[in-house]
């Protein structure tokens, strides 16, 4: 149900091209956003507005790092974003392309 549990971070995710899974719908909420995967029926809380912005930016960038840069996420916060996206990848909310 949340992005807190899940697999250990995958190395090198920052350099990879990822995208929102086509079976996932995202809805903005006061705390960030809700994402729902129609295939595996998982509901995931994106608990930061910046995380939602990066998710939206993924499609236009060749790597997670490029999307983070475009969203002006400070490099000191990149490790936590890499971990968050590793969790989202494990939950199939995003996928590699």
């Amino acid at each position: 149900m949340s992005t807190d549990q899940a697999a250990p971070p995958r190395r090198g995710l920052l350099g990879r091209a990822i995208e929102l899974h086509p079976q996932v719908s995202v809805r903005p909420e006061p705390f960030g956003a809700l994402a729902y995967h129609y295939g595996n029926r998982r509901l995931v809380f994106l608990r930061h507005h910046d995380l939602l912005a990066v998710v939206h930016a993924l499609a236009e960038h060749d790597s997670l790092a490029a999307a983070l840069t475009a969203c002006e996420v400070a490099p000191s916060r990149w490790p936590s974003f890499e971990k968050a996206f590793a969790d989202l990848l494990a939950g199939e909310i995003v996928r590699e392309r």
Partner: protein
Amino acid sequence: MSGETLTTQLKGGLAAPICLTWELTYACNLQCVHCLSSSGRRDPRELSTAAAKRVVDELSALRVFYVNIGGGEPMYRRDFFELVEYAIGSGIGVKFSTNGAFIDAAAARRLAALDYLDIQLSLDGADPATNDAVRGEGSYDTVMRAIDNLAAADFGPFKLSVVATRHNVAQLDRFKALADALGAQLRLTRLRPSGRGADAWHHLHPTGAQQRQIYEWLLANGDNVLTGDSFFHLNALGEPLPGLNMCGAGRVVCLIDPIGDVYACPFVIHGDFRAGNVRDDGGFTRVWRESELFSDLRQPQSPGACASCGAFDACQGGCMAAKFFTGLPLDGPDPECVSGESYDLAAQVATVPLTLKPRPTPDHSYAVR
């Protein structure tokens, strides 16, 4: 970003519900003794097909991901498939609860053809005697026939939905084994004193010792058993159960009843918890976002008599509906409170005079013959 922070945020309400239950009809072929909507007869004011589709359009615009369709028996509606197909076509997943009576071979094939459709078949006993005592003569066999038809149509995994009662807590392992054997997922939810359950609850709700048994069983089975997060009152016993530890009524959850009335949750079909109607100006969206009742429920709630109990953070005082229909104050312990001080509260509830207990409204049970 702790779980507590998320819970606090969710208590303030969401742009749209996460979990929306929509009872399509009060009509039902069964008369289960614990029916939370007192179903039986169709309400003549039931939403028309066109009105129901307008609700779907609104939910789609709100990006409600899925709806839980129930009743009554939702397949009683002649436009059941039309509405389900319309919802799925609008990007809304459908999970629906049924007693299986109308899942013949043809209906099973039609259900199997739909993507994004989950079925919850209700079963309240691991054997016909236990089940039928609550759900009616022959209802166990009806479910098994529906399961056979779904299997023949290659529907795939479904959910077996069990309400925990005093008479089936001893069967939890059997339910799990049955679900496993059928390729189903087990869903176990809490009995509420709602609808006809207001009367049945007193002799059906699990005993104090059984509450602990449910808790330990759920802990041991973890995420493999769905609960709708309905047992959070048991978190007072120790390690929290999986899921959201809070009352979602009017915050992340609500109910649309067959005539379009919007209630705070499926277990409080009563005038005090009616927030509006989907046919009011501004529709469901306005009810969800602006109704006085839902705004109140999203304010921080007082722990009241629970304030001095060390377990309050763990159990949140339990279920609002359970307190309301047993005549207990909403800012006090749940009638099935498991913390040391009020362990036998359920026994005390029996002494609340009937005249002080709210009666569920409306009642669609069959007229007494």
